[in-house]
């Protein structure tokens, strides 16, 4: 048996190591390096970023292979310690963290920084996967839903305090996706999602808020649950609206502005709307073939501040044109579809939820970032996985792919 397996490894690499994920990932990282180089060379403050990212890449790939080689059972036992360690770091960063662009989300270690919220992504995914698959969990039990939501909610609150809106949203999406995947009923999903709906509606003013609440009442009639359940749900929704209103007021001015700028992009064209506009101009002016590497005037003349982080995609749009932009999206699609397929072949629910968690994480980052660059979603500060400059994000993304590959490697083994 052992012999045969080893032979398989030797002759069929694909059987143990999924090239359909690894190769697109490497190509995306290369695209990212090119774009970082283009947007930072000769830059007064960021010209060292390319070299730094090269180091990050090497570290991340090493981390990927380490994770890939670990015994699979280890991940389950990592879940609880990693989750609480994440919470500890999230708390610690609020006290001793470094403030960058108005958010306290960094630990400064020497010349490098580390974002605990990146670590928390891994911790939360593992923890949720662990909790939701622990023994015979009933996801349609209100208490179990509550605990699952709490696992997601605690890091979300801590990250909101930094404040980092984008990452909070990603955590919320991950939490809801995993609960959804665990087989929650339509009513359960309604309970989970309706407060979000009410909060979103309240952004548009009091009338929208009231209208949303009326829709909730209508939906409650439709579900025909008992009065106690219905009233509980309604009160949760009502308080969510008020809570958000309160939360909005304690938001930092730049965050309030971002929300306002999403609702009315023309209101603040030189503020948060400026980046979005310049990014669109960069991408649109790229045309079919692009202006050529290092020849995009929007990029080279530094029209987009901090382009190497959240607006890295418009470097590609401008310099590599429609072809480059579509290629990047296609590479992401390949990875996502592959992850999606792997989720069906994993041998246990824990593994499946991890893959779904990773997929959700990468996809939400991707969708929010690309949507922002293309001007179809609001400006929310989130990096584009594998391409944006940033060590923590690349490291954690590669570690998570390492875990997924590890699951893939072990899919045929029985424990």
């Amino acid at each position, binding site marked *: 048996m052992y012999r045969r397996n080893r032979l398989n490894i030797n002759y069929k690499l694909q059987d143990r190591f999924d090239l359909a994920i690894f190769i697109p990932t490497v190509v995306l990282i290369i695209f990212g390096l090119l774009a970082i180089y283009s947007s930072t060379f000769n830059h007064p403050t960021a010209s060292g970023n390319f070299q730094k990212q090269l180091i990050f890449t090497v570290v991340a790939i090493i981390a990927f292979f380490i994770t890939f080689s670990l015994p699979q059972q280890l991940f389950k036992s990592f879940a609880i310690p990693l989750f609480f360690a994440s919470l500890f770091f999230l708390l610690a960063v609020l006290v001793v963290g470094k403030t960058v662009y108005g958010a306290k989300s960094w630990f400064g270690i020497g010349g490098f920084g580390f974002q605990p919220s990146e670590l928390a992504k891994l911790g939360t995914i593992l923890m949720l996967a662990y909790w939701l698959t622990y023994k015979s969990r009933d996801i349609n039990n209100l208490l179990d839903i509550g605990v699952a939501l709490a696992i997601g909610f605690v890091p979300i609150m801590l990250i909101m305090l930094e404040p980092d809106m984008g990452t909070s949203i990603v955590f919320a999406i991950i939490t809801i996706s995993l609960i959804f995947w665990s*087989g929650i009923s339509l009513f359960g999903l309604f309970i989970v999602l309706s407060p979000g709906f009410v909060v979103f509606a309240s952004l548009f003013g009091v009338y929208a808020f009231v209208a949303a609440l009326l829709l909730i009442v209508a939906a409650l009639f439709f579900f025909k649950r008992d009065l106690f359940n219905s009233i509980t749900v309604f009160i949760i929704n009502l308080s969510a609206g008020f809570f958000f209103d309160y939360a909005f007021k304690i938001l930092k001015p730049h965050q309030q502005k971002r929300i306002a700028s999403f609702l009315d992009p023309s209101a603040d064209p030189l503020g948060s709307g400026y980046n979005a506009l310049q990014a669109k101009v960069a991408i649109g002016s790229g045309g079919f073939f692009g202006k050529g590497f290092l020849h995009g005037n929007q990029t080279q*003349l530094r029209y987009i501040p901090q382009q190497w982080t959240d607006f890295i995609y418009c470097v590609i749009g401008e310099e590599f*044109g429609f072809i480059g932009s579509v290629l990047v999206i296609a590479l992401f699609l390949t990875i996502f579809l592959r992850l999606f397929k792997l989720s069906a072949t994993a041998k246990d629910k824990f593994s499946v939820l991890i893959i*779904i968690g990773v997929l959700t994480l990468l996809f939400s980052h991707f969708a929010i970032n690309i949507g922002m660059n*293309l001007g179809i979603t609001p400006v929310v500060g989130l990096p584009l996985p594998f391409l944006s400059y940033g060590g923590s994000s690349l490291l954690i993304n590669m570690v998570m792919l390492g875990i997924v590959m590890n699951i893939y490697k072990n899919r045929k083994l029985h424990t």
Partner: protein
Amino acid sequence: MDDNNFGSYFRRRIIFVMMIGFFAICITQLFNMQILKQPAYSEKSDENSVKPIYQTAPRGIFFDRNHKVLVGNKPSFTLRITPSTYDKKLNLYIEAILGTSPGYIDRILKQNESYSKFIPRKIAKDVSFKVIAWYEENASKLPGVDYIMETQRDYSFGIMGSHMFGYTKEIPMEIYQHRKNEYDIGDDIGFGGIEKTYEDYLRGDKGIKYMLVDAKQKTIGKYKNGEEDQTTVKGDDLILTIDKEAQSVAEEAFKDKRGAVVAIDPSTGEIIAFLSAPQYNLQDFAKVTTNEVWRELNNNPNKPMFNRASMSTFAPGSTFKMISAIAALEEGIIDTNYRITCGGGYQFGDRYFKCLHVHGTVEVETSIEKSCNTFYYSLVNKIGLDLWSKYAKKFGFGSKSRIDIPEEAAGIVPSTDYYNKVYGKNGWTKGFVISLGIGQGELNVTPLQLAQYAALFANSGKSARPHFLKGYTDTRTNQYVEVKPQTYDIGISKKSFDIVRRAMYLVVNGAGTATNIKSDELQISGKTGTAQNPHGKEHSLFIGFAPFNNPKIAIAVLVENAGFGSTVAAPIARDIIKAYLIKGNKEENKNLTAATNVQEEQIEH
């Protein structure tokens, strides 16, 4: 409920559709932006990063009729302030270095407050290199201050010519509103005189350099290696009809006088000299003109801004006697045998009109030669007001000559209608008409009209519209284009003219009123005059032409408050005529043949 299972098919479906759906949206948006709307975005991107830098074109140069430079250009530094980024605390430093009075900058900024504060204001033109060196050293501490190289009018060629040349100044808002396509805020535009009339020839085409700028508006380099740049095209050079020597003599003669000179080539209408004194210094206008400079010029009792040569009007006195003489001869009212006896005046009704002397027997020739008033008191009465008026108008009085500068007055030639209008049908008497015979009363003429009047006598009724522009060089084609206004003939017989011209000859060369300027070389003919002035001493007038047989120059000279025409105005006229004719005879042939070559040489270098 099958759907509620872990990772059920239904749930997979939802996630899958969401993913594919988002990709479809992204590709659609990319296609829309990068292919359908690419041109629009490209334009925006270029607008972003390509900054046009305008270079003002040097204005065309003024040459005189012999291709000597009258008004040129010189490079100069202009200091500018952009209010949006400027800190008013810097006023004191800049005023100190410019050597201007405190508050100068505030005043300039206030003058053009209505413009956008992002547009640079010219604070001082023609600033010294010392100021520029100071600026360069301290540029980082002087936000909103910069300087540009411009060309500026150079008036250092020996003549002032302030009223005919006019000046340039920054385009005023009310003109800019109508000519937005042609001008930018801060551009200079011709204001008054030749600068205004020929603005479209003179201004040339602005050059544009396209520079790449980064998000901080810092210049990075040339856009497309300067392929799209437009070079500046210098304005067309004007060859004026002015004779530099004659003009210079006129200006010299009027240094401490008030008055006007207009000299015209009688056969072509070319203006040889044109002066209104006192003049003002055009160089003052080449700098940024403050309101004080304006106020000072406008409040000066000598009215230096007023163009006396074509705008001042007065009764022309005895110079007008030839109108009655021509009218009477032409209409057959008198002939050369007609004579009267001057006993020192003329009784009309209960009024007695005086003559300056007792002339005894006077016929038409002596009436002009000796300037006998009595002759004309009775003659104008014989001619009648409206016939007299008709002849005055034939000579161009009472209407504008359509000279090619905007400043011109029409004057007044009274007629029955005119008096009826002013005084009512019975409010005036024939006595009003008697004064007109000797050019007094409600007759208003300009020096320019008098010069043209003299030209018509010189050339026996044929002349052309008086004008300054002889030709111009089209900078684009480098061709010289000559401008020739149509000649006209006022339709009066040579016979009548011969009689009057001979009389005018005798004024200077016989026993007339201006024998003091008699010159065999110049052969001047003319007529003196004294214009009554209600505000002070009479104005001294002389009109004339020379040489008698083939007149090359006709002239009118007005010296304000100088008394009799012969003593002051006539010698000035002689000097100008001399300056023009003596040199003109020597150089004329050479000029005609070498004209184009000379002019090209002077433009090239």
